């Protein structure tokens, strides 16, 4: 019995140790939250700049959160190996928000109050990010991230930008406008239906603007079908949509749910266009059971070229990930935007100074995909020069980036 207990304890300890990895900083052979990643060009003796990263590395969005976190870690490793911020090394403190706003607030307090970070890289999640708006203003902590719902960066009532929140990619609305514009102009779509997760801010923030664009441009919305986190099958909704037979259906949620929705629609006999958010990238193509046909989605990067291709090559080797994912670039881009502002600051740890530079002087920061990120001072989001690819899957079910599009549409 003692042996069994000893074995059980060993398993538990191993599991705990592995589970704890989510909060550690891995690149460069260092580990443990708060460890410095010394640079190779004389940055080690200077006072480090502490920044935080809050990502979902174990919750419902961890499939996106883990590569996002890797992108942040690699960007910190890269900046330290390239002279740091004006010679000062960057020290990364990471936390796992588990896609939970409450946990996200606790993470924020730990990073600001205990670790003493001066800026935070946020997750591609809108629910936790929304909860930091007032905290960041109070503490003067700039947060740069990929929380694409516009309510994370601007007050929905006044339209004014929240002072410390910054987005480093096109918002959900812009992505939906681009997708809808492509559908209506290039695919000649006149009637649409939507199928999305009402429990997911990411999905809701895509669906509304898509519908708005279609209706404003003479299209007709035949159905707006929904599902929730606890639903595992959308057959009823799919059959309803198939019976209405719209020209196109918009799917919005995370990859897993997109797969089920796509299969349910095709199983229900729907043969029209299926349009998707940027979660339709791989592994979507390896998971769907039906043939991928007439399927178009927005994609942040052309993953086959440029910095993003190099990042993915390293990330897939280092982490054992089987397929490329754009989220690696999200973490990288958010860091590049923040580092760009910090490099311009007299005191990169001064939250107010960095905030002002982020707001007024973030111009043409190169993203992992090669696009230029210029922050619009009035919205704290990229200007409309930054667009998205419209992608599809080719005959070998590989991603095929068809066209890079921007949109000037405003609801």
């Amino acid at each position: 019995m003692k042996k069994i207990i000893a074995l059980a304890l060993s398993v538990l300890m191993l599991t705990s140790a592995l589970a704890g990895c989510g909060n550690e900083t891995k690149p460069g052979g260092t580990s443990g939250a708060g460890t410095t990643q010394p640079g190779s060009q004389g940055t080690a003796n200077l006072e480090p700049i502490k920044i935080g990263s809050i990502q979902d590395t174990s919750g419902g969005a961890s499939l996106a959160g883990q590569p996002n976190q890797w992108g942040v870690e690699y960007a910190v490793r890269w900046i330290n190996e390239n002279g740091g911020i004006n010679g000062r090394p960057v020290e990364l403190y990471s936390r796992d928000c588990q896609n939970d706003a409450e946990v996200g607030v606790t993470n924020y307090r730990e990073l600001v109050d205990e670790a003493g970070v001066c800026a935070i890289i946020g997750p591609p999640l809108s629910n936790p990010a929304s909860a930091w708006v007032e905290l960041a203003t109070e503490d003067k902590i700039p947060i740069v991230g990929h929380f694409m719902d516009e309510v994370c960066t601007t007050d929905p009532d006044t339209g004014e930008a929240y002072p410390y929140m910054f987005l480093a990619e096109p918002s959900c609305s812009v992505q939906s406008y681009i997708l809808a514009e492509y559908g209506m102009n290039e695919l000649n779509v006149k009637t649409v239906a939507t199928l999305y997760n009402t429990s997911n801010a990411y999905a809701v923030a895509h669906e509304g603007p898509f519908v708005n664009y279609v209706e404003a441009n003479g299209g007709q919305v035949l159905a707006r079908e929904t599902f929730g986190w606890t639903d595992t099958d959308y057959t009823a909704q799919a059959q309803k949509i198939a019976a209405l037979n719209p020209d196109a259906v918009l799917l919005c949620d995370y990859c897993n749910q997109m797969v089920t929705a796509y299969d349910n629609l095709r199983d229900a006999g729907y043969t029209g266009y299926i349009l998707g958010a940027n979660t339709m990238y791989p592994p979507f193509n390896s998971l769907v059971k039906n043939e991928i046909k007439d399927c178009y989605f927005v994609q942040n990067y052309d993953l086959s070229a440029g910095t993003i291709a190099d990042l993915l090559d390293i990330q897939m080797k280092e982490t054992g990930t089987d397929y490329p994912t754009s989220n690696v670039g999200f973490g990288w881009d958010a860091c590049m935007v923040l580092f760009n502002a910090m490099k311009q600051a007299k005191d990169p740890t001064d939250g107010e100074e960095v905030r002002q530079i982020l707001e007024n002087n973030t111009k043409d920061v190169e993203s992992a995909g090669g696009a230029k990120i210029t922050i619009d001072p009035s919205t704290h989001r990229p200007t409309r020069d930054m667009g998205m690819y419209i992608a599809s899957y080719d005959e070998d079910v590989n991603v095929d980036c068809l066209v890079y599009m921007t949109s000037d549409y405003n609801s």
Partner: protein
Amino acid sequence: MTFQLFISGVSLGSVYALIAVGFAIVFSILKFSNFAHGGMISACAYIGYFFLSAFETPPPFVVTVIFTTICGVLLALLVDTAAYRRIRRKQAPNIYYFLASITIAILIEQILSVFFGKNLYGYPAIFKSTTFNIGSIRFSSVDTLILVVSLVILAVLLYVINGTRIGLAIRTVAISPSTSRLMGINSDVIIIVVFAIAGALAGISGVLLGMKYSVYPSLGPSMMIKGFIASVIGGLGSLGGAIIAAIALGIVEIFLTYWIGSLSAPIVLFGIMLVFLAVRPEGISGRFAKDKV
């Protein structure tokens, strides 16, 4: 459309039935809902996937199911040894079984997340087409397979329980473990047999659910709520009741979602469940679990 929805409901119900039977078999003996079943289904889905991936030419579907079923049995015995055996020996209240089962479910899910959470996996298709038509009615190939498997499992289990000596022993232990010991039945062995059966069911369910959906750590647990509801409505511990309730649940859910939408459907669905339990708390089977298997 109405008949098509009915067929879709039966298909969805067959998925719930697969889970509900796993619940029912353990509840029939130990009188607790084994939530670890969901975690075991996830683990078996991964085992089946990696077994298939290990071969250049994937082995036949039946071979994968047999392999995963054996692994499910071994996993169930491990879980019993690690989590339930000492509770049983100390004759602790059922709440400890309940807590242990939830702990095991979370533990398995987290272990899977740590080791495999970076990727989603998809089983290769075993059918040329995902659907087939009979007349104008469209059937899902995988769902039909799941329904057939559920019914075969039910038939086999009913035969084992009602027509064999081991089944007689299971029924005896279900009624009273202490009395069965006085009659010369080793109740510990019988309980292990029941866990082995539940493990086999988890193995089969893991492969089938993995084929229908993607393979991810919360695959099994995400199905547990509906499976649990079906086993309660069916009459906790009743195998036949669980399958009937699961299919009824699928049909009602499909129609409600179609008519009133996915947001309102759960309100009505759970309302119906409350009314049903108030009117017939013993469930569809009509007997309380303590009186039968």
